[in-house]
């Protein structure tokens, strides 16, 4: 009898808990970022005419969300599409462009948005340098006008939808799902990787580079032996077009790192994670730190900062690659990077809930 009563109480408690949790989830307001993004998306869409709106706002599905690339316009992307989703900045009025970039900024941190625009500025320089020697009719184009912005799905504070902003060396893919904001998969790159504006040197991916070099040089000889692969790695292993794939981890395991080395590793990872808005970045960094002991750091190339080197960080919920492409003095003037989450690209977890 006592056992029966105990079971009844247990079932009632479980049911009450489930109902309570569900009610709490429904009552909890969406994260500020999602609300801001939704408002900014609606504002942007309102600036467009119907034809532009049809191009800018597409369905959110596997066929559309995977259309992004490191490549410039005029080249078929890795997934086969010949044009990015959305409308390109060069076809927008100043007011429309302002609204488009405000929408992009709504899901990024201040530093993340600045990094994205520095990559765009680098590409504008590339366009200025390459245009005079380009063959007439050549389809490849670089420059600010060739960056596309799109909204996949209906902007919402509860359902999954996405904002994409991309062009040569940039694919910002932010998926929003209620309280969740997910930046993966995202590609950043730069060519030139260093340039001057008003006498100031701009290195869009300088933080990533310098912090990683500091980390490799902070490792002990034994740790370096584990981390350095001893081979030349010429490009991203899991670049655009390889969604859903994961490679076997290699390198030094962070479980062997000192507290200082772990902090340095976290700082490198933050360079990618903190591109997204602060609330989403903080949640993601906690997840990264929870899995830090099982995270690997691999290196290929020189260990003197100023020379080209490839590195990779791979943990339970993070996959990062940084790959110089072999251009310029010391092979450092053309960089590709990739940021993935093997468990939650495109907010996959939200889809299975």
């Amino acid at each position, binding site marked *: 009898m006592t056992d029966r009563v105990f079971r009844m109480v247990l079932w009632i408690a479980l049911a009450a808990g489930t109902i309570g949790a569900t009610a709490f989830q429904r009552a909890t307001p969406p994260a500020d970022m999602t609300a801001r993004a939704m408002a900014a998306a609606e504002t942007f869409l309102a600036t467009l005419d119907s034809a532009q709106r049809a191009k800018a706002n597409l369905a959110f599905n596997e066929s559309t969300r995977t259309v992004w690339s490191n490549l410039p316009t005029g*080249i078929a992307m890795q997934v086969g599409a010949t044009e990015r989703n959305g409308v390109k900045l060069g076809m927008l009025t100043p007011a429309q462009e302002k609204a488009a970039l405000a929408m992009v900024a709504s899901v990024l941190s201040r530093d993340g948005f600045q990094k994205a625009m520095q990559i765009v500025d680098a590409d504008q320089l590339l366009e200025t340098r390459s245009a005079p020697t380009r063959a007439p009719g050549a389809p490849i184009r670089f420059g600010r006008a060739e960056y596309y912005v799109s909204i996949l799905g209906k902007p919402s504070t509860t359902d999954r939808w996405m904002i994409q902003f991309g062009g040569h060396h940039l694919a910002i893919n932010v998926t929003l799902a209620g309280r969740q904001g997910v930046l993966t998969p995202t590609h950043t790159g730069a060519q030139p990787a260093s340039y001057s504006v008003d006498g100031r040197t701009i290195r869009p991916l300088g933080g990533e580079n310098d912090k990683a070099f500091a980390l490799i040089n902070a490792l002990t000889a034994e740790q370096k032996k584990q981390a350095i692969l*001893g081979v030349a790695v010429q*490009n991203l*292993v899991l670049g655009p077009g390889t969604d859903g*794939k994961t*490679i*076997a981890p290699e390198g030094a395991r962070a479980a062997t790192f000192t507290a200082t080395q772990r902090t340095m590793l976290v700082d490198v990872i933050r360079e990618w994670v903190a591109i997204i808005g602060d609330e989403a970045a903080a949640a993601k960094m906690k997840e990264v730190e929870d899995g830090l002991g099982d995270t690997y750091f691999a290196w290929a190339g020189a260990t003197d900062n100023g020379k080209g080197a490839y590195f990779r960080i791979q943990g339970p919920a993070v996959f990062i690659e940084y790959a110089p492409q072999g*251009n310029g003095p010391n*092979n450092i003037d053309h960089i590709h990077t990739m940021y993935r989450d093997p468990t939650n690209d495109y907010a996959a977890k939200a889809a299975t809930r």
Partner: protein
Amino acid sequence: MSKATVAALTIALLWPAGASAHRLDEYLQAARVSLERTSVLVELDLTPGAAVASAIVPLVDRDADGVISPAEIEAYGRSVLANLSVSLDGQAAALELTRIDAPSIAEMRDGMGTIRLRAAGRVDADSGTRTLVVENRHLPAASVYMINALLPDDRAIRVVSQVRDPQQSSARIEYQIGPGGIEEGAWLSIGALGLFALAAFRRQSMARPAAHATVEVH
């Protein structure tokens, strides 16, 4: 002398000895290897840099009409596979071309066109530690290589180590296969069968007309 040999020699002659690595001057060949119990799958992405594309294009566009036909890209894929070897525990495994995609010639000449080749080989790998050796000898004078093992879908298979030569033209992948049991997929199948049986039972008991089932066989 075959066109392939002429092109390889041309590349070798144009290739400055000791030149620093430069993407434009290289033929990047990146392989990803999937390990399964009874097969090995190889994905090979081939991207000629702009400066070597003029030597690679004639190997693909054999009739030089400016268009890569399906027959031409398939023939090129087979010539690449002839230079790609896979062996398991010392036993060679023949690779079959399963798919190949060609970029446009213009994209190749710009150094941004990638040929995507997919191949599969049958292996008979029992439980235990296995060693797979992958070697790519396609156009070594102009090429840089990458070889990486993908994380196996089968959780009973675990990659233990990957040892490559400095150029990554060959890799020795050691992996362990756990004892065969009922895999996740099998459990899902059992679950699906159970649901099917339940649905059939309900349908029978409710005397409703049956829906048509669609079965795809690959």
